[in-house]
């Protein structure tokens, strides 16, 4: 199948094609979904580089299990839930290593007081975030935590760039108020 025509084919048809032995059909799926998956995983794990590894792993496991996919069901749902599982496994693994990394962090530089203060501050922000509107939280997380640009946040949330700006301004105001009341 030609690359141009592959772009127009549905995901399910591409999966069927991969099941019939086409490797280039799988390449089309990778090209089609890598950006969306990366944003999705970045949002979950809050680490762009780790997200890239997770996306890569997910595609490889997808290929290994592609023969078992039911093409009557929506492929994107399967792909996103599989990737989410990979991200969750990563987060679980990270939790195990975190205490050690944390201890190393303290021993190499900052004093325990500073680290505690930073932890307190982070907890306060998290508390404040949990009290404001979810749509504001998403914009703040994507823009400040994931370092996405206005355009990227807009593309991810499927909203215009100007809406991102407005929403971010309102989100900051809401967060400030929430922090003051805490």
């Amino acid at each position: 199948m030609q690359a141009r025509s592959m772009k127009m084919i549905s995901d399910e048809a591409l999966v069927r094609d991969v099941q019939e032995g086409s490797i280039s059909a799988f390449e089309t799926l990778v090209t089609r979904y890598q950006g969306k998956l990366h944003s999705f995983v970045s949002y979950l794990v809050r680490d762009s580089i780790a997200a890239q590894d997770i996306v890569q792993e997910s595609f490889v496991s997808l290929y290994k299990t592609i023969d078992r996919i039911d093409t009557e069901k929506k492929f994107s749902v399967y792909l996103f839930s599989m990737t989410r599982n990979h991200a969750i496994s990563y987060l679980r693994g990270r939790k195990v290593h975190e205490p050690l990394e944390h201890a190393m962090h303290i021993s190499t530089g900052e004093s325990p007081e500073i680290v505690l203060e930073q932890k307190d501050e982070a907890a306060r922000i998290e508390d404040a975030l949990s009290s404001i509107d979810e749509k504001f939280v998403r914009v703040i997380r994507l823009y400040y935590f994931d370092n996405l640009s206005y355009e990227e946040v807009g593309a991810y949330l499927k909203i215009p760039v100007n809406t991102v700006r407005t929403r971010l301004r309102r989100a900051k105001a809401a967060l400030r108020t929430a922090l003051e009341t805490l």
Partner: protein
Amino acid sequence: MKKIDVTKSVMDSIVSFESKRTKKWLGILLLVVVWILISIVLVGVRTYGILSERHTLDVLEILYQDREIIAEFWQDTLLVAWEEFPQQSMFIGVGLISILIGIWIVTKRRRKIMVRRIEELAKRQKRRNNT
């Protein structure tokens, strides 16, 4: 959306995985088919040896010279053939041929898929060598 491109690294892993998987599958298939073919040949040679020892082929040749006899006494001819032929070897031979046919039918779809994958892998390899 942040632009990332994992296509190359993903496809490299896929190609490497697929090459190994295809080689393994073809290797196993080839091994099984060759083993069955060798067994069939061995059983054939053994059957021929037994038939020659018993001079069964000579009897059959005499019968074949006059086909009218076979047409008239076909039941007796069959009985002679049945009794003269080494039945155990024949059963093994027929069994092996049936297994071979079975494998050929069962793997038909898979072989088609494998051929397509091999073609694509070869194309990718060629493209990689050219660049």
